[in-house]
């Protein structure tokens, strides 16, 4: 288990292998190249000395200077490339991880997850993790390789002196490590004091009038003053530990520089070193002292990356494949003995049976809470259903059980009560990336053509959060358009006309019928039920499969509903 997860990070890195190679080459080149600075600067001083003493000519200097600028230019160019590509590498890594996270999120079951807090946390963990990896990669070269390069150059000039002077930077490091405890302690104390300050400030403001009517404001300000004093003290101490110690460690490191000046000048006098060696050695040591103080960063960076990787790796399972599915062929639908309940809930549907053929419109109606919406939801794909138990009974699609249909085809297109619109353009909301959709035709079917044309950018107008730029009726019609833009052999339309006026409803209804599809029209508005092929009348989770005419004759409730609505419609 552990191993495969480790391989997972590896797999992310492998994908970036060319970037990693580039970073490694430039990283090593640059960090070896940094010793060029001190080396050439020493040579420059030496050459100047020689010229002043008449040993060399100015042409020698020109040549050296040209080489110096060229080498530094090359080293810095390599460095720029390295810096740029380390960041690019981190960005790519970050993007891949986030893509994976999102891919897993979108395949979650509807309604099963929280509001996204966990995901948001995971995303910030990815940021931390990648930042840690980036820093580690950077520090491996800029601290690791650089230290080795400096060390190499120092020993090249003189081994004995190097051993001696290199005692001091680690000493500074040891002292710094020792002082780590007060540093973290003072930071923790400051954090605590900050919490108290925030709490007290909030109280002072929130309860200002309570304190005022009790005459306590002055006294509260005095108490607040003591909180401020404590905060001031903690902040100063923490600040001192965080910032004021660094220069002191540097002093310890620089004891080495004193030794170099003293012993190095002897070397020069004895002829063992020239000026170039002397100044290059000194410059090199100073740079090493600065670098070594940052060695701790390398370990911190690796540590941090490890921790956040540990948190996030469980969530980085390989994502699901998502191939868009084409609509399935039309077929007969036969429902028999269907029962359904939500998890831990009472039975909503009881022994429901009906049949339907392609080209039919089946009207489903009944009183409030009769289970008609639930009947529609039973047909949803499992991952789009709210927590529920599997249905009992049979739903046969061309003789195959509905729940066992292969997932490479789309069998249902659905419109629910909620429009479920995205912060995207009208066109995107309707098509959701589906190509070959006749957008104009569909908008016309749902009577949106004029209204969409009046939007600032037509169908490319981006709707506000959850489609709030549009009215409720418009949102419902965009949702209906989306359903129609995703053809399937079974349409389940749950209350599609809820926020639509009667003429529009009539217009939409007249265009709904599709010879290649069954339409399950769930609604409490039955003004067009005289045009449907079949009516399912629902009462308390049971279904009476009938026709408009039969129900009008046989069901008193249906007749009452019809007269009420038809009368209202004719008066309108």
């Amino acid at each position: 288990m552990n191993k495969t997860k480790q391989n997972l990070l590896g797999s992310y890195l492998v994908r970036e292998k060319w970037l990693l190679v580039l970073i490694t080459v430039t990283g090593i080149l640059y960090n070896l190249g940094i010793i060029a600075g001190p080396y050439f600067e020493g040579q420059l001083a030496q050459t100047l000395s020689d010229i002043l003493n008449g040993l060399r000519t100015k042409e020698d200097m020109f040549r050296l200077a040209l080489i110096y600028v060229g080498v530094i230019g090359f080293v810095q160019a390599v460095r720029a490339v390295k810096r740029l590509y380390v960041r690019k590498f981190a960005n790519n890594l970050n993007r891949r991880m986030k893509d994976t996270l999102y891919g897993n999120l979108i395949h979650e079951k509807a309604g099963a997850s929280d509001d996204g807090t966990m995901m948001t946390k995971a995303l910030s963990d990815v940021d931390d993790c990648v930042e840690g990896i980036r820093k580690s990669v950077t520090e491996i070269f800029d601290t690791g390789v650089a230290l080795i390069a400096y060390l190499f150059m120092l020993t090249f000039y003189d081994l004995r002196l190097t051993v001696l002077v290199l005692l001091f930077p680690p000493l500074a490091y040891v002292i710094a490590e020792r002082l780590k405890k007060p540093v973290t302690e003072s930071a923790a104390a400051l954090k605590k004091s900050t919490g108290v300050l925030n709490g007290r400030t909030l109280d002072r403001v929130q309860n200002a009038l309570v304190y005022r009517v009790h005459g306590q404001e002055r006294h509260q300000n005095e108490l607040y003053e003591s909180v401020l004093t404590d905060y001031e003290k903690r902040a100063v101490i923490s600040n001192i530990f965080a910032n004021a110690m660094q220069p002191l460690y540097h002093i310890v490191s620089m004891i080495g520089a004193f030794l170099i000046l003293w012993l190095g000048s002897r070397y020069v006098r004895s002829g063992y070193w020239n000026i170039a060696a002397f100044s290059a050695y000194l410059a090199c040591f100073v740079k090493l002292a600065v670098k070594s103080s940052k060695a701790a960063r390398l370990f911190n960076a690796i540590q941090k990356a490890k921790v956040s990787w540990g948190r996030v790796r469980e969530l980085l399972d390989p994502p699901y494949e998502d191939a868009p599915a084409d609509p399935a062929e039309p077929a007969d639908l036969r429902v028999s003995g269907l029962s359904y309940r939500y998890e831990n809930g009472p039975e909503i549907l009881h022994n429901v049976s009906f049949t339907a053929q392609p080209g039919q419109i089946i009207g489903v109606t009944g009183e409030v809470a009769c289970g008609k919406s639930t009947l529609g939801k039973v047909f949803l794909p499992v991952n789009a259903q709210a927590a529920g138990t599997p249905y009992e009974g049979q739903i046969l699609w061309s003789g195959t059980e509905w729940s066992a249909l292969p997932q490479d085809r789309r069998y249902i297109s659905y419109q629910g009560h909620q429009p479920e619109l995205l912060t995207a353009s009208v066109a995107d909301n309707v098509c959701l990336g589906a190509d070959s959709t006749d957008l104009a035709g569909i908008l016309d079917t749902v009577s949106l053509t004029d209204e969409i044309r009046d939007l600032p950018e037509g169908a490319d107008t981006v709707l506000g959060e959850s489609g709030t730029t549009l009215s409720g009726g418009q949102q419902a019609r965009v949702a209906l358009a989306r359903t129609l833009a995703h053809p399937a052999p079974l349409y389940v339309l749950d209350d599609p006309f809820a926020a639509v006026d009667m003429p529009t409803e009539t217009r939409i209804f007249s265009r709904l019928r599709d010879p290649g599809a069954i339409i399950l029209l769930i609604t409490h508005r039955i003004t067009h039920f005289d045009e449907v092929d079949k009516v399912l009348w629902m009462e308390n989770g049971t279904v009476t499969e009938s026709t408009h005419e039969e129900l009008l004759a046989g069901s008193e409730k249906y007749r009452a509903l019809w007269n009420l609505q038809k009368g209202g419609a004719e008066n309108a």
Partner: protein
Amino acid sequence: MRKTKASDPLGKGLARAVWQHRFLTLLLVLMIAASVIISVYPPLVLAELIDHILEGNILRYAILYFALTALGGLTDSGREVLIAVFGQKITHSLRSIMADKLYRLPAEYYVTTESGVTVSRIVNDVSAVETLFTSGIVSMAADVCKVISILIVVFTRSTGLGMLLILLLPVLFYITRLFQKRMLAAQKDRQKAVGSANAQIPETLHNLRALHVFRAEGWMRKRYSRFIRDGFQAMERSNFYDAIYSPIILFTSAFLVAVMMCCASAGGRFASLFGLTVGGAAAMISYVSKIFEPLEAIGMEIQNVQTAFAGISRIRELLQAAERVCPPETAEPVPDTDTQPGAAVNSTADPVVSCTDLSFSYVPEIPILRDFSLELMPEESVTLAGRTGIGKSTLFKLILGLYTPQKGTIRVFGQDPEEIPDAWKRFLYGYVEQTFRPVPGTIEDQISLSDPRISREAVLAALDTVGLLPTVEALPEKEQTAFSAGLFSQGQLQLLSIARAIAADPKLLLLDEITSGLDSLTEARVLDALRKACENRTVFSISHRLYEQTGGRRIVLERPDGTAESADSAPVPSC
């Protein structure tokens, strides 16, 4: 409303804070100067050392070099300490000024401004001002001094190099600022793209059903991926500037060094212009690398100052907000709770509260009270009735001195309520709000409000009166238990509210409608506690239920356009 407006209270406050800590400020300036000057010297010593290296006697140079380095480290360290202290002193002073402002703000401010906003001014924006001082102005001054002092030294040693630097510095500084601005812009773009990507997550979860039904998962993934990519493209722009900035600076230094060395060795006029010894050359190389360091820092500091300005203008706004009339500070001793408070003005014949021809409105268009008059005699119990929103609580707030009436007078124990010294308030009147407002601290603190004049005994007595003593004594640390709302039921919280009001044994009690939203059993307990709390006090109440229980005089408040007052005084079965 009486308003006082200082021209620039923030500027004055800061100036006062700096003046108050003038020695610290002076020390800070000196330390910065010392640190700058000392940091300039080591290369010069090194130059001397190299120039005398063959003469043998260089130990003193080595010691001097080390001493200067060490001293430089010490002054740097000292500077950091002083900056920290100075920054915190400023922060502290500013927050004290703002706390004082809280005292002066009118009640209206607290009603109309979200407390989170005010807290953010005091906590976050003041931190921004601290940054302005420490990471902004002070560091910028130090860095500018550093550049100037290096320039001066370079000029004394090598006029040619100095001139080259003078030419190059503005160019490099311009590049620095340009890069920083571009990076900031790129970062803003990135924030925007990241925001879109983040917003897609709750949206995805919210619309999962539709996305699954329509098999739009792949499309949504592409969409998300595009937002992330947009974010990173913006970031890559910023990375590009970041990646090439430092190499450009270092290459420029190398180029300068090369030019200087060539000129120095060219002989003739050039050589005299650059006039270098070997040691001098080494020193100049070191200066060239040092002079560019502060450039980047100065650029960042400019950015810091700019961001801090937004916070500063918000603080200024708060400090310039209209103020109330503050009550006088009194030298009089705190009235003794045992004797009649305010005895001098409160003989039995004088009313405890009197309102005469009172008119008040929050906004001129909607009058709340018009020509309202009322007298409350000692130990009288009066209930104020009237429909919701008619102004009952407003009348209380006027009596409490939270608002100033537009017309008419109010006297509480013969005094203008706005003029009653803070020290006297809770000994004169107690106020029970509709809901209990907890304060941080122990249960005792809830009642005393940390007022040292309220003794532990007084707290316990108040708890006893309202019948909460057994409950509190059952707690692990009794009245010293840290308060949390979970310790008490809704009704018990109301009782705490009453205990808080009577802790200083005031002679007047103002009761807001406190029994609303309680079940009948709890209500009975609260009413019982209230009855006890009302004993021997003048009571002015809005509580309808209390009136039913205890009777007293009843005043019905009506809309100002109708009759202002219709008092149906019933004979009082005194409470």
